[in-house]
């Protein structure tokens, strides 16, 4: 599986755990997972930590735009940026 697919798989699992399998059909990949109520900030942080550990990423969010990186597609592309992957 490519990095993108593996990351998507981890995020999907987290969302399905919380909301059931149908969540993936209704998901808007471009809107914030937090504002849409799918994850709260603590869920999001613990998912990030899990992603960092699993894929050996060292992510720097300092100048990142939270509107972008809290959306499904934004997070995946952010995590897959070459300078974030080791």
């Amino acid at each position, binding site marked *: 599986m490519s990095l993108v697919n593996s990351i998507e798989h981890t995020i999907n699992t987290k969302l399905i755990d919380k909301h059931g399998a149908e969540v993936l059909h209704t998901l808007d990949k471009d809107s*914030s997972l*937090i*504002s849409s109520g799918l994850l*709260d*900030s*603590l*869920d*999001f*942080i613990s998912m*990030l*930590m899990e992603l960092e550990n699993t894929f050996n990423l060292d*992510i*720097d*969010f*300092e*100048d*990142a*735009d*939270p*509107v972008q*990186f*809290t959306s499904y597609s934004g997070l995946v592309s952010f995590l897959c940026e070459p300078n974030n992957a080791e």
Partner: protein
Amino acid sequence: MQLNQRLRKGFDLYSKNAAIYVDNTYITYEQLDIKSTYINDNLSSQFTSVGILDYRSVGYYCAVVSCVLSSRTFVPLGTKLPLNRLISIIEQSQLSCILFGSQYKELYQKLQKRFPRVSFLCIEELLSLTSQPKLHSSNTKTDVAYILFTSGTTGTPKGVPISWNNLDSYVTYMDQFLPLTPDDRVSQVFDPTFDLSIHDMFITWTQGACLYVLPETALFAPSKFIKQHELTIWFSVPSTASIMSKLGMLKKASYPSLRISLFCGEALPTALADNWHKAAYNSKIINLYGPTEATIACSHYEYNPSESTSEVYVPIGTAFPHMNFCTDKNGQLLISGPQVFSGYLSNTEHHSASLHVKNNIQHYCSGDLVRSGPNNNWHYVSRIDAQVKIQGYRVELAEINAKSSEFLNNALVQTIAIPKNQPQSLTIFICAPADKKVADELLTYLAQQLPHYMVPKKVIWIDSMPLNSNGKIDSNTLHLLTEK
């Protein structure tokens, strides 16, 4: 001077300055004044208690100002609270009017069915009325400034009414302790149902500064917002700083614009204060402490980064000069002075447990165990009961246990907050055979009854509840079970 007079003075003095930055728009003091007057002009003098159902919008702030200028009691209504909890809050507060933001139309329609006698008014509609406002319009006179609700052990939220006198005492002192200038740019991180948001508004507007309302998406990752707007004053719970630290947002010298950083709502770890100091090296760091019942905060401590300490947490410091701290024989902090409220809204049981008359003075029993350290600074030790803080919000574990047990036909349950020292989330133990479907149903039920931060993240099924030598549930063993 009373708060409404102070605000009025500020509005006249700083009319052309920006008062709020919200939704990418600046609102001047003059606009805030006019908009709040529009709202006030449409409120009958019989509306003495007004609920405000809105979130981080221009309308919300105008509604609050309108209540303060006309001395009405305001009750912030959490837009994300489950319907049942909102209903309980509206019933207890005996609201005569609810101002709602147009984006909460659906919620308002549900509430209107439940409360046909309450007047519901849409804030945006009031603001779009074009009649010339009559400035400085009618006043009602209430004793209570605002009512906020906290978690209650019996399963219903507890209403804490704070009087205008309580609030005046706080604002008067804070304006001296924390002098701002019209050039200051002040963060507004706290949600409206958290009393620290009241600090943000009034400390800013009595001194002509500008309140920068963080959009919801920026709340947990505010780095970009702070830099973009060069905020000078920061105020959040330590949990926000801790999340920022985890996301790599507390790098050295990241926030040179900050000159004062305030933390309150939960214990501030010394290591975190040190990280914050490195990121915001121009900023004083002040730890505030105080329960909602004693109006926002009542003690302070300025963290000194150059002083080495073995303390895990920054002290809660000394009481404000007009407030008094002492302890009972168990080491529980008792608070007295003009910021202490005069009792809960309705439940006399809570009332008698937490207010205690000693030497003819009413003391609030905080439930916090403290010890006195060097330079008369107080240090927080622990709670005397099962109350915990999740992201600064007070959570009575008993309330979650009561609701869960009721749902599970009186099954034995126990909720704990993990990790023990700095709780981030809740885990519930249920004494029954494991059943994934029941666990899901329970969590769904709790989400309909309790605020989101009170809903456990994890369910663990156990055969029997571990007990300690006193026959009480042994939470230490439960904590060990979560580590497995």
